[in-house]
């Protein structure tokens, strides 16, 4: 065994030499300055900055670019630009210009009224009306002039504010530059290959180019009252005419026309397939509708309350009874049941399709990678966007509404099923395989039972997502409570809108509470 000298923590000396060498290697230029600065940072115990980097304060973002501190570069490029825009507005801009312009117009119009008054007087009519108008206009013009002058006087204070901001930003950069650079040094020690270090010519050039590209144009646009037209809006028409022969067409009109014919053609070509999808959805919906509306209402209420009791306990059952009473007493019974049938059909279809897909994605990493962007799209694409093709392909009414609901509601159950499948411990799967389980047995006995809590969470999420679509699908002819809300919205009917809204809320709460209660019991088993 080699001899180890043990030193008490309080007697340990800081080995500056090794550290200095490392900092010098990192900083390349001005290494001594930075090792001194980093030492101060290392030795300080307070959060306040200990050093001031003059180069960083003077050069600003260009220093950051030079040293490769890109986060600081972008943050302070934007902040300094704000300051420079203020300075520019104060120094070269004319903040009162628009008011002066308005005052001139108003004076001209006042002059016009006076002339009209003159002609009226000569014609022997009463000029009082025009005189009054002229008077008003003159007063307005005076006010505009005053505002313009005030704004002009403000120019100086705007400039001062800009200067003040610039100085503050410079100070902040000077104070925090070494701190930020020290953090970068710490990162560099961990991962020297992928962390910027030293002074790179390439970085400096890149920083200067970026500053030159962004700053002057932006400052020009903000400070000069009427800058070049091309800076105000993208020259979309000019670009279009460069591509297209017809001067009346733009890229937008051509593309949208092309897509429209595509969709129309696809709708005609696939009519049979689309109709059978609608038929399938409709049969699920019809079965649910018959069960909920065809059955006498006392039976339905009793069944729902008992289900709530058994699944989620007495408190939820009492709440359910009260909510159902609200719905029934206000005459929303039938439309509410239609909504429940709509949502129920969507949820059933989501679950029937989503769980197998989720299992597949959970097992196959490649399939999941391909599916993930599609799932993201389904959840983020605004519903209004896919309502249009849905109308084209499936027409209007409840079944297309269910399809739109499925698009929005299915991702959670797929995702959470896949997540649950991935979370099944390898060791338990291996044990089942070691005892001779086939793939099907493995799935049935191990993977699905262990993934069940996650799958149930997914189903619950899907129920809520589907409920949130009931108002939107009324736009394409979906019925139920959503339709009531849409009508109330069209007539700005506050009372009916709120009452209907509460009915939807209660439907959602009943479904959510009952489902959650049931799943919680499942978990506890």
């Amino acid at each position, binding site marked *: 065994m080699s001899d180890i000298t043990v030193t008490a923590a309080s007697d340990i000396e800081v080995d500056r030499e090794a550290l200095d060498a490392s900092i010098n290697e990192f900083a390349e230029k001005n290494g001594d300055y930075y090792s001194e600065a980093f030492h101060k940072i290392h030795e300080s115990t307070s959060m306040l900055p200990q050093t001031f980097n003059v180069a960083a304060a003077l050069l600003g973002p260009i220093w950051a670019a030079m040293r490769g501190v890109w986060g600081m570069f972008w943050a302070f490029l934007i902040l300094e630009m704000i300051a420079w825009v203020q300075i520019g507005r104060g120094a070269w801009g004319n903040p009162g210009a628009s008011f002066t312009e308005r005052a001139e117009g108003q004076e001209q119009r006042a002059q016009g009224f006076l002339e009209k008054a003159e002609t009226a007087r000569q014609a022997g009519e009463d000029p009082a009306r025009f005189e009054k108008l002229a008077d008003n206009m003159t007063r307005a013009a005076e006010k505009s002039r005053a505002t313009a002058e005030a704004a002009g006087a403000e120019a100086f204070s705007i400039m001062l504010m800009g200067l003040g901001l610039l100085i503050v930003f410079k100070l902040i950069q000077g104070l925090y530059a070494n701190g930020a650079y020290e953090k970068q040094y710490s990162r560099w020690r961990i991962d020297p290959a992928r962390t910027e270090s030293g002074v790179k010519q390439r970085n400096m050039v890149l920083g200067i180019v970026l500053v030159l590209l962004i700053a002057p144009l932006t400052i020009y646009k903000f400070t000069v009252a009427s800058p070049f037209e091309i800076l105000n809006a993208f020259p979309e028409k000019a670009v279009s005419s460069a591509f297209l022969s017809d001067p009346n067409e733009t890229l937008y009109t051509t593309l949208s026309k092309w897509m429209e014919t595509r969709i129309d053609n696809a709708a005609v070509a696939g009519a049979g397939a689309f109709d059978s999808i609608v038929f399938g959805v409709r049969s699920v919906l019809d079965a649910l509708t018959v069960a909920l509306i065809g059955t006498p209402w006392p039976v339905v209420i009793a069944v729902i309350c008992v289900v709530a009791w058994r699944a989620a306990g007495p408190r939820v059952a009492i709440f359910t009874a009260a909510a159902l009473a609200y719905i029934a007493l206000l005459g929303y019974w039938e439309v509410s049941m239609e909504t429940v049938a709509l949502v129920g059909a969507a949820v059933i279809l989501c679950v029937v399709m989503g769980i197998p897909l989720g299992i597949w994605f959970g097992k196959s990493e490649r399939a999941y990678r391909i599916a993930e962007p599609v799932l993201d799209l389904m959840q983020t694409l605004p519903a209004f966007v896919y309502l249009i093709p849905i109308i084209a392909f499936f027409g209007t009414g409840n079944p297309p509404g269910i399809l739109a609901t499925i698009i929005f509601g299915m991702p959670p159950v797929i995702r959470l099923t896949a997540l649950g499948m991935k979370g099944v411990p390898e060791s*338990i799967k291996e044990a*089942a*395989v*070691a*005892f*001779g389980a086939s793939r099907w*047995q493995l799935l049935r*006995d191990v993977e699905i039972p*262990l993934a069940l809590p996650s799958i149930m969470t997914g189903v619950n999420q899907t129920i809520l997502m589907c409920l949130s679509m009931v108002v939107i699908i009324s736009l394409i002819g979906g019925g139920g409570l959503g339709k009531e809300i849409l009508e109330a919205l069209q007539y700005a009917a506050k009372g009916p809108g709120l009452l209907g809204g509460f009915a939807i809320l209660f439907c959602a709460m009943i479904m959510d509470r009952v489902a959650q209660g049931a799943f919680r019991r499942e978990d506890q088993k």
Partner: protein
Amino acid sequence: MSDVASEVVVKLSNVWKIFGDRADEAMAAVKAKGLTKPEVLEEFACVVGVQDATFEVARGEIFCIMGLSGSGKSTLVRHVNRLIEPTSGAIEILGRDVGSMSTTALRQVRAQQIGMVFQHMALMPHRSVRDNVAYPLEIRGIPKSKRWAVSDHALDLVDLVGYEDRLPKELSGGMQQRVGIARALASDPEILLMDEPFSALDPLIRMQLQDQFKALVAQLQKTTLFITHDLDEAIRIGHRIAIMKDGVIVQIGTPEQIVMNPADDYVREFVQGISKLKLVKAHSIMEPLESFSGDLNGAPRADEGADLDQLIDLSVGTDVPVVITDKGVDVGVVSKPVLLRGIQGGKE
């Protein structure tokens, strides 16, 4: 079945496992040029998990595979039930080649002839203890009444009566591992694969389970491959021990052989800290009768199979050496200095 002890149940011949995308190329290169492990890693970016493993395990034998983590022992044992496919080499169970079995046949062998116990128990948390134990039978489609009876019997073997209807999480770690053992025994397999079954348990429970397990296996006559990273455990349990290092089996032998004649420095280092009291037998340290010139009448006598522990007991009460006998005939003596050196581990 005249010669039960020597019937070979598990036989591995020249088993190689190379992990990586280019495993087959690497294997061919190894066979042609005899590349070493680092060379394979450098040239093919493949890791050699098991290197040329060959051994046989006889019926009723407990064969321990000892090695540190990453030495390939778990990989090796998973070849026996083909959870891992060998890159090269053959594995035979009861004379049948595992590698050439169809999926169905393999599943049948796994369900009927091999029981496996895992380091982290790997019990199904949603099933009762009884249903966990019965799972191998359930896979084979055995009716529930039979399943339950068999699993109750298996639980009885591991002394867990009364816990049948509990969930695994309600049991302590040691009890859970006993459930794991019961599950492995439930289908009455020929072979037990034990993958560090007691490593995750605390020392006292571990000792208890080791003794319980050894007695159980002796009674049931199961052929066992027992993986461990603990040489003490291997010596306590195993009839023979294979020591693995970096995918290579360095030495195979009985505990006594390994402790007395370590094959290389690696094994020697392991063996150093092992207590020899129960391991070393009289015949391996005794000296010829002639070496003692005094009177041996009245000297204590011990069989040549007696271990050091027993010899110490005999030697404490007397000044003369202990006389070692073989079938009643005096064959040698163990004097106190020899005994003390024996305890130290044969230092000259």
